[in-house]
């Protein structure tokens, strides 16, 4: 067993882990942070995407011991600290945009998709449709056909750039 220490969504953790333990299983099984999902075993689907020191990684391709001493951010820490998950006002613009643009159906890929999109927008705050499509090609969605995911990412980007947020779609 090996000791690992890391910050996860702002909380410090120190645990003894098997060296073979994947970061995603550390998050899910040791810390109980089940917001990050596992969708494959070949690092293709991206459902497990989290941020390691601010950059997106597929947490199924990182050993927990490799993340020792780092800062990990997951979907669970994306909304404003202290806000209830049900309070849309506290959500990150990407979370709000996926909701308003119907960028999710079953929602299983969504945590990874949003974390990957956040990294994409950090690099490119105003991506074209094509840039979003290529920027997210490591994340698979089987429900949406991606059109509304692309819309959501671009809508969130506009909001994050300080442009007028989209009006609510509700009637």
């Amino acid at each position, binding site marked *: 067993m090996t000791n690992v220490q890391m910050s996860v969504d702002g909380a410090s953790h120190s645990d003894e882990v098997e060296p073979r333990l994947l970061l995603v299983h550390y998050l899910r099984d040791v810390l109980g942070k089940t*917001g990050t999902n596992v969708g494959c075993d070949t690092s293709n689907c991206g459902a497990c995407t989290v941020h390691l020191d601010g950059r997106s990684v597929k947490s199924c391709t990182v050993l927990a011991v490799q993340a020792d001493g780092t800062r990990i951010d997951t979907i669970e820490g994306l909304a404003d600290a202290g806000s209830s998950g049900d309070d849309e006002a506290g959500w990150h613009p990407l979370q709000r945009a996926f909701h308003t643009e119907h960028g999710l159906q*079953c929602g299983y890929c969504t945590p990874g998709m949003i974390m990957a999109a956040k990294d994409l927008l950090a690099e490119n705050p105003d991506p074209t449709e094509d840039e979003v499509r290529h920027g997210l090609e490591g994340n698979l*969605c089987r429900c949406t056909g991606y059109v*509304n995911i692309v819309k959501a990412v671009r809508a969130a980007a506009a909001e994050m750039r300080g442009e007028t947020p989209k009006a609510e779609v509700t009637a």
Partner: protein
Amino acid sequence: MTAVDTPTGSIGVTKLRKEDARLVTGRATWTDNVAAPGALHMKLVRSPMAHAKITAVDVSAARERPGVVAVYTGADLMDAWKTSLPSVWQVTADVKEPPHWPLATDKVRHVGDGVAVVLATSAGAVADAVDFVDVSYEPLTAVTDMEEALKDEVLVHDDAGTNRCYEYAWDSGNLDEVFDRADVVVTRRYINQRLIPTAIEPRAVVVQPDPTSGGYVMHSATQIPHILRIQLAIVCGVPEHKLRVIAPDVGGGFGSKLNVYAEEALALALAAKLGKPVTWTETRSEGYQATIHGRDHIQDLQIAATSDGRILGYKADIKADLGAYLQLVTTGTPMLGAFMYPAIYKMEAHGLKITGVFTTKTPTDAYRGAGRPEATFAIERIVDDLAAELGMDPMELRRKNWITHEEFPYDIITGLTYDSGNYEAATDKAMAMFGYDDLRAEQQQRRASGDPVQLGIGISTFTEMCGLAPSRVLGSLSYRAGGWEQASVRMLPTGTVQVITGTSPHGQGHVTSWSQIAADALGVDFDDVDVLHGDTSISHRGMDTYGSRSLVVGGYAVHSACQKVIAKAKRVAAHLLEAAEDDIEFANGTFSVAGSPDAKKTIQDLALAVFAAHDYPQDMEPSLDAEATVDPENFSFPHGTHLCAAEVDTETGRVIIRTYVSVDDVGRVINPQIVEGQVHGGLAQGIAQALYEEAVYDTEGNLSTGSLLDYYVPSAADLPHFETDRTETPATSNPMGVKGVGEAGTIASTPAVVNAVVDALRPLGVKDVRMPTSPRNVWEAIQAATNGGAA
């Protein structure tokens, strides 16, 4: 026949989904997230061979491994099963239904077939231990090709005596006369390749003994909690009332979670045997072997027509690869397409033969569309090929033969009655959006200039039968269940409403749409309605979610239960307002007395009044709650026109979709945003079959595309923007006028894309390109055609 209600209130407008909050914040309850303290982790030892006799299974070394609690072979568990895993569709009287035990006992029949099961105290321990189960195999010849299998030289099921599971033949009209009379007969063989559904959430199951009830609580990543409960009660001998099945948040299905799987039966049986919770989650690569596949048909078609383009009839000889075992609706999947080969065309005769074939591959079953994509692909492809043969524009040929909007209801040659439709309206709208004439002009230019990148235009004017299904029709087809659906409405005393549905959503947004239906019918606020589902102890009756049935049957049940609530409330209102019931009017949630606008009660007032129960009619119970079971009188027949413009590089074989336009008619729409999302997702899967996906087996029966590394599920970068729109021709078979939408995009889009690819290459002599239309398959088709052979 029921009239279509006028849309009021919240129906027909986009309401943002109630489901999303937990999903975008990482707080969903996937089955793998369900905490079961002290659970044993289960893992199956799976066959690495496609076909082999099991000569010995030595589990002694595995039993000694750290953390291992128990190891069982197939033989060890035979007394745990009252019957084998179910196949519910007895498609013919003499269909071969060989037993399918949760673990193989005598021989293995596909790579991934379960041979033994290990239970250990952690996921790591069980993963380590399975490698210590020593199975001795005597290899047998694999049979992966249907036509080879039909020679019966290698038998998948020895006791069946044949690999021909069933043969179903059926024709109507004077087929021989029609083919004799035809000026043109086009003959084609289409290959509808094998696909892997790939719901992004892997399958998972957790079973916990429940000491309170003396029974079991099962969480499963399933589309069908109700069917699963009944079937597992039968397979495992657990009394049905002692088994509670919960489908929590479920991450996609597309048919792959419409089944009763070995792992579900094993988890229940072993939880019962050991008195401990049991948990299992598949890995993706494991699921590729152990979760159902889809499609895999060989379609030999002939279409007969007159020289001026009148379609007279067709003959379809379909071979369906069922794989090694019959899963829940393996036999019936091709049958769901059997009625659909006429599509939207008027004709005089049809002939159909379906042969279901056992092979040593993973079982096939219902994958998004289930039989209807196969049928639609074949007919829409051959109509294009017929147009080419006749030298007609393919849209012109379709217009000449389709059922016109004045002709509905229309009885097609296979006996279905299409209740409504307007193919002209959908097509006109799609053609305008697409810019058909301009694209044809550009195509001519590219052909004339010998551009290495040719342009093709593909059409699919599809319809489908969905909304499964009228129970009596299912009975007449020897399907061993009904197709009704159930809903209950609870009027709570503080004025809010709970709707309980028998449907089981896994991404479709039923909570939102059913809230809209109830809010609209009852005149209450959308946010004052909640919808409960997916737990057999809460939703006690249901037939679950598949076959684009949920809105058409389940939404109809919600609507119907609301009407019963209103009828009860009307009696209470008449009593309290001291008026005759006939004088009570109901609108926007308020009951009032005709002519006395001040005498009124809201439906919430009445819910509270019957809760207090101080004053209510003598001859009724003090409750407004109601439940309804509806059984549809007909299928639902969505239709639409899909147009694809594809650029095909004749030097590299690369296909790029330039424009994709779809105009779907799914009847009246409850939530436009959700409907559009369903179409988008359907298009992606149908286009993926056309361009990318294929489950490939080698001749030894190994799944060459055994992981997401090898099986090409498209990403955002691989798919185009879709331009979608709708026409709305209400269905007449339900009072809301709704039709199904979940499968429409998938059914329609595959032939639109392949027709575009073939259209681009016709000047080179190419008549078909095998799916997926990958660079290699396109290039090979070009080579075959230009080297003098037909593609």
